């Protein structure tokens, strides 16, 4: 069973704007929580596992002692965030347009408060 901290992180992330899918994966690559159909979650978990493994070793190769926090893959349709914490991995799938809108509104509000 995943630790409470990871569970709480997962619950918080699912509520971010534009989240269309979320998957919590344990250290063995098995999805333990998701709001997607089980077979879809399994496919994402399988595809992202080698990516996380390579990302971790790449980060070490680029600078000894550094550690991976997350990878974000922006495609034409969606943005997939793959975040790692200890043994667990969280995959978050977000809609591009909603993501862009929330980014623009946060930039606009920061400008407004600066005036």
């Amino acid at each position: 069973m995943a630790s409470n901290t990871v569970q709480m992180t997962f619950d918080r992330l699912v509520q971010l704007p534009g989240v269309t899918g979320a998957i919590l994966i344990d250290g063995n690559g098995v999805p333990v929580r998701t709001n997607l159909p089980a077979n879809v979650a399994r496919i994402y978990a399988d595809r992202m596992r080698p990516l996380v493994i390579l990302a971790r070793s790449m980060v070490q190769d680029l600078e000894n002692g550094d550690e991976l926090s997350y990878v974000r893959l922006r495609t034409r349709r969606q943005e997939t965030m793959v975040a790692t914490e200890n043994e667990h991995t969280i995959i978050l799938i977000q809609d591009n347009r909603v993501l862009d809108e929330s980014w623009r509104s946060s930039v606009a509000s920061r400008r407004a408060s600066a005036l």
Partner: protein
Amino acid sequence: MSKIYLKAMEDVVQRNTDNTNRITEQAQGFVVSENAGDSLLHTSFDLTTAQSIVKHLHASFLKLAQSCVRDLDTDDKLCFLRVKTRKHEFLVSPEEAFTVTVVL
């Protein structure tokens, strides 16, 4: 690499000097590599650092990320990649012929 190709690259670099200077003000630096042979084209880093980024990030990890996206949806395509670590952030933009990485 042909001289014509190198000349074209130099022209692009010349035309974008303002952009690259602006990037360098806000970032640790940038690396541009050519996709066909994963060869270093232009960088603000020292050669060792730049070649390490091209080797590990452009030639290896980016290729895997692109194939992951294809596997999940054959009609989709990787447009941008961000790798955040404890110490740095790598912003990778894969274009048709070149790949640009900015390191924050």
